């Protein structure tokens, strides 16, 4: 008899596929010598990360990731490449010794991180469980909760009755907003520095 309940298999398969592709694209980002190709691989990595977020049920974060990273930051990076290019396609050269050292360091770092995480994980023995079975990834209403948390209203299922709890994120939200404004002005100021220099000389 065939196993009829495909859910867990499909979930596992989907995670394996997306995670594998994301990891491969991340490695390709590092390995490739052409800066725009590197940016393209980074784009695939970011899209894969947003796929991971969707798998985790965080639709809102996934959509934000696509909108800001893919639609904004990556366009900015490629724009930067185009504006600073001297030839048609830029190749970055890294010599063999540097590669050997950095790959060795990378493997070391990765193994330390994953083994450290793994031992921690195994020490707990039971492993981390999902928050709750009924709160499935299918119909998540996290967006509303995030909005409440950011606007300073009480949020979360267990915090409805407590008026003081859950107002933690209004101030960070405002700080980030002001930060973005400062970034806007600062980036504009920095990028137009050349024109001033020409006027002086």
């Amino acid at each position, binding site marked *: 008899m065939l196993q009829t309940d495909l859910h867990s298999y499909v979930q596992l398969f989907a995670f394996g596929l997306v995670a594998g592709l994301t990891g491969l694209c991340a490695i390709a980002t590092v390995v490739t010598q052409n800066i725009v190709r590197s940016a393209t691989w980074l784009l695939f990595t970011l899209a894969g990360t947003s796929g991971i977020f969707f798998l985790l049920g965080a639709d809102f*974060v996934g959509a934000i990731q696509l909108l800001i990273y893919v639609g904004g930051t990556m366009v900015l990076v490629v724009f930067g490449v185009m504006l600073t290019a001297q030839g048609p396609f830029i190749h970055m050269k890294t010599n063999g010794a540097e590669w050997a050292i950095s790959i060795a360091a990378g493997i070391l770092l990765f193994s330390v991180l994953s083994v450290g*995480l793994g031992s921690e994980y195994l020490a707990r023995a039971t492993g981390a469980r999902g928050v709750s079975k009924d709160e499935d990834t299918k119909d998540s209403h996290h967006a509303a909760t995030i909005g409440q948390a950011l606007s300073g209203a009480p949020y979360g299922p267990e915090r409805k009755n407590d008026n003081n709890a859950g107002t933690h994120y209004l101030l960070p939200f405002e700080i980030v907003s002001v930060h973005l404004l400062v970034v806007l002005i600062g980036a504009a100021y920095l990028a137009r520095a050349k024109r001033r220099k020409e006027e002086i000389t």
Partner: protein
Amino acid sequence: MSDEVHLYPYLVLGALLFTCGVVCMATKRNAIGILIGVELVLNGANINFVAFSKYNAVFQVEGMIFALFVIVLAAGEAAVALAIVLNFYNNHATVDVDGADELKG
């Protein structure tokens, strides 16, 4: 339910992205290549945040909010970094970070 994906694979993926980012920052001489490495590192951290928000009840909303802050700040960081790179390019006609050695004693 042993077939379901647990927290650990997500953390490994995050670690992989983090490592790739660090190696990218170390090997690339191009300023924009270094920026790409930084983005990878931040994404590795973000995967961890969101994975914790799913698998840890205390961290349920916080994980996502932290991830959002990271994404937004990364956008700001990229904007400022690119402005600096453009300025550097205007002054030195290169984006090779080895060219930025004027403060060497």
